[in-house]
């Protein structure tokens, strides 16, 4: 799995973030990665869907991804957490 996606799911930099994550884990089952066999962003392909929260934490420009203004909101399963979202953000890899 790519470092970018791994960080997105499991890494919280601040104590506040870690506390929030711990609280979430205590109230709902931890999500396993859907499609965890997918090795990295390159194999994930050109398009990935993230939840709003995940999208905020995804350094998309560093990985050469950008949002599509024509598709500002999509539904689907997050490629990071596997959560269903009807307010997902679509990122497309810049060619």
């Amino acid at each position, binding site marked *: 799995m790519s470092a970018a996606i791994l960080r997105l799911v499991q890494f919280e930099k601040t104590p506040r973030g870690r506390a929030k994550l711990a609280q979430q884990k205590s109230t709902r089952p931890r999500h396993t990665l859907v499609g965890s066999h997918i090795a990295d962003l390159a*194999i994930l*392909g050109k398009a990935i869907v993230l939840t709003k929260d995940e999208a905020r934490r995804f350094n998309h420009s560093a990985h050469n991804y950008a949002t599509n203004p024509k*598709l500002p*909101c*999509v*539904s689907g399963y997050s490629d990071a957490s596997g959560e269903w979202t009807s*307010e*997902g953000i679509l990122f497309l890899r810049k060619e």
Partner: protein
Amino acid sequence: MRYSGRLGGGTPTILKYQAGENMAIAGVPVEIAGSGGYGLQIVETTTAIGVIGLTLDIATVANSQAANADTERSISVIVNPDAIYRALLSGGSTSSTALTEGTEDTGSSNGLLVSTNVDYSSPAMDETGIFGTSGANAGFARKITSLSGADAVLITAFPMDSAVGDKFIAVPFSISGSQATQINAMDKQFVELTGTWDQVNAAVAVDTDNVNFLPLRLILPPDLNKARTQTFVDLINYDHLYGAGQLA
């Protein structure tokens, strides 16, 4: 082609699937592979059975094992059965070919006949649509209800008389309306895709194929001088796996 909305409104739903063949460009419709196949396959130019949706990805398939890597290649697909796909109209089987434009050679004093240098009997354009691109009827569309030799006959007249030199473009599906409002398709007539499956081939006879995409609306450019290269059609898939089901 690209996603341009949903009949029912709401957001597009995107799911990931295995690519069953190389997909050099994004924005092509894909269908299930069927028995013995795997992954999703690009539809054919003349048929599309069990369509899943429209791709957002490209893929190069590699099925052999590789060290520390999964060889399955996934693609993202917009899967809504009521999705509207917008495709450029091409004047041939090669994408981005300019549309054939006819130039009026006799003129019409009642707006019921279009007689240009184009033979509307080959490919057969009876029961299709035609719109003006220059002259008094520019931006107006009508259904061709019959042919008189090589000429197009209408039941509903164009609003103005046609003059020699006026220009018209025929498309292989029926339409009516005006550019100022909407030019919508009216009949159950399937279209044919171009060789790279990303555009609609407008240089074919009406409804001779069964690609299972129905025209919904014609979109003309603001500048009709560019209609030959910038006219789009919105399509609805007629045989979606999660909608009407697999017909055959």
